[in-house]
């Protein structure tokens, strides 16, 4: 499985992009602290070429993990290897210095050098090359990231999205053997985000290296992920394809992370094996929901998670819907968050959080006290063990 590559000396790197393949192996134990206390980071995984998302709430150990891989922090013990070459091995007492590792690292705060222009920033990592080649390569990369026109500006003179591009270009131009991205898109608006992701993907097609992409944003996981590693309290709690890890959460911590605004304790009241569903009662005597069938007995207790964005609101009792659950209720309050309206709806003692657009609120004339029907598709109900 391990692909052995012989790292070429930097001066001999080809000017044109040439596919190389490598694999990142990480086995790390490290004590770290966050505001909530002290944790043990204890992870073991392999990342192949392409995007691997490291997903977790803040304080889960994501940045500590990247720092250990980059060599900026020493693990307590373990092994870090890229393309079969050991960068850190506690048994062999091996620890390659960060500046010799050739691992690209873009931190959330970007850390552009304020006294250098965009072009000088990008050329910074090419210091072993001759000046002419350094210029060719950095201009090529500035062009690829569509920031060629900014090359003589300093970081303070360009926008946030442009700074992000400079930081990425600066890391990629050195042709790293692996790339670590610590929430590099966190501060960007959605269109900028997706165009940057496109640029990254394009680069990754010609440079087959592992990219570890840290985020706490569930949306980015679906947009990017080939493989997701879910971190919680320093441990890997789930790993796999985005839809496996995110859509069918098995642990409630994951459910909260991946955007289940509605989580209810529930009791199974009836099984409908013929149609592949079952009926669950929410809370003690709340409403009943038809949910997908899982291996459970009548009377067993579980949790139901529903995303606020998966719920529909109707101002009249809807007919002819495929959705199995239509629950009458009353709007308690509306809150605006950016461009989303979050409505809290009381359905016979069970409160649902429903996300709407501004336009939907206005055209339906929604407001507190209004009678509405909440529509819940069976397959929007995600079941978890207690």
């Amino acid at each position, binding site marked *: 499985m391990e692909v052995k590559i012989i790292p070429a000396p930097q001066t001999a790197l080809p000017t044109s992009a040439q596919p190389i393949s490598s694999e990142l192996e990480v086995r790390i134990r490290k004590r770290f602290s966050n505001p909530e206390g002290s944790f043990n980071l204890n992870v073991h995984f392999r990342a192949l070429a392409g995007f691997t998302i490291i997903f977790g709430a803040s304080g889960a150990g994501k940045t500590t993990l990247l720092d250990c891989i980059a060599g900026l922090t020493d693990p307590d013990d373990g092994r870090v290897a890229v393309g079969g070459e050991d960068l850190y091995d506690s048994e062999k007492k091996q620890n390659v210095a*960060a500046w010799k590792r050739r691992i690209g690292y873009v931190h959330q705060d970007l850390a552009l050098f304020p006294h250098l222009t965009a072009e000088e920033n990008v050329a910074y990592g090419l210091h072993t090359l001759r000046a002419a080649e350094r210029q060719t390569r950095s201009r090529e990369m500035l062009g690829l990231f569509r920031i060629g026109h900014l090359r003589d500006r*300093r970081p303070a003179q360009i926008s946030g999205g442009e700074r992000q591009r400079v930081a990425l270009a600066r890391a990629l131009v050195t042709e790293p053997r692996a790339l670590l991205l610590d929430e590099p898109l966190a501060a960007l608006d959605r269109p900028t985000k997706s165009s940057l992701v496109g640029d990254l993907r394009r680069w990754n097609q010609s440079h087959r290296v592992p990219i570890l992409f840290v985020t706490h944003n569930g949306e980015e996981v679906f947009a990017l992920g080939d493989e997701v590693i879910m971190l919680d309290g320093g441990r890997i709690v789930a790993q796999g394809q985005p839809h496996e890890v995110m859509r069918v959460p098995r642990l409630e911590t994951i459910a909260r992370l991946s955007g289940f605004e509605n989580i209810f304790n529930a009791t199974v009241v009836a099984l409908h094996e013929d149609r592949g569903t079952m009926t669950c009662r929410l809370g003690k005597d709340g409403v009943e929901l038809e949910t997908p069938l899982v291996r459970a007995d009548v009377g067993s207790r579980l949790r139901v998670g529903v995303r606020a964005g998966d719920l529909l609101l109707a101002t009249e009792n809807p007919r002819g819907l495929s959705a199995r659950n239509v629950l009458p209720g009353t709007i308690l309050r509306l809150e605006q968050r950016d461009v989303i309206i979050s409505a809290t709806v009381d359905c016979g003692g069970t409160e649902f959080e429903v996300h709407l657009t501004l336009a939907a609120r206005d055209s339906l004339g929604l407001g507190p006290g209004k009678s509405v029907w909440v529509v819940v598709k069976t397959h929007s109900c995600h079941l978890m063990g207690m």
Partner: protein
Amino acid sequence: MNWEAFWLTVRLAVIVSTLLIAIGIPIAYWLTYSRWRWKFLVEAAVALPIVLPPTVLGFYVLVALGSRSPLGRWWESLTGHTLAFTFEGLVIGSLLYSLPFAVQPFAASFGAVDSSLLRASASLGHSPAQTFRRIVLPLSKAGLVTGFALSFAHTLGEFGVVLMVGGNIPGVTRTISIDIYDQVETANYSSANETALVLLIISFVVLSTVYSLNRRPWVAGPWK
């Protein structure tokens, strides 16, 4: 106006502040990045000349330079004369006397460089020494200028150390401040006033040059 004393003083100040750039940068580097647990002792020792009476410092330098100390004997065997009461001795005394005025601004500006820049530089394949040269030093320009100017101005006006180490030999160790003292002693107030005024103006010019150079040059402006 005693021009001989004036140029001697300027020569002393230029030599001392230039040497302090060379000596002060490694010391400040070590003070900034060392994790040695007893580092604070070195910090305190470097800062001593700020609080020590110049005569105390001058006295110990005189003893250390004299023919009874190893340093003094070594210098004597090398050159045939002692260090005490010479211009070279004055340079050594002034180096110690002005050391904190160079090292402290240097260390403060090195320490103020955002550590995330150092980490980024390492990830881009630069050794700590390369990072220091290409990131820390350029971003510490303000501190370097300040340290240079402060040690220059401080050496320009020293009195106690000079008197203890150098004495008062015209053309060799008689600096402006000693010259002013001499003139006041002989009730020559108008000449003392003239020299004092020159010293005052030079000090002001040096400091205002520092502050004008230290207006942050690579911030685009408040509008950003």
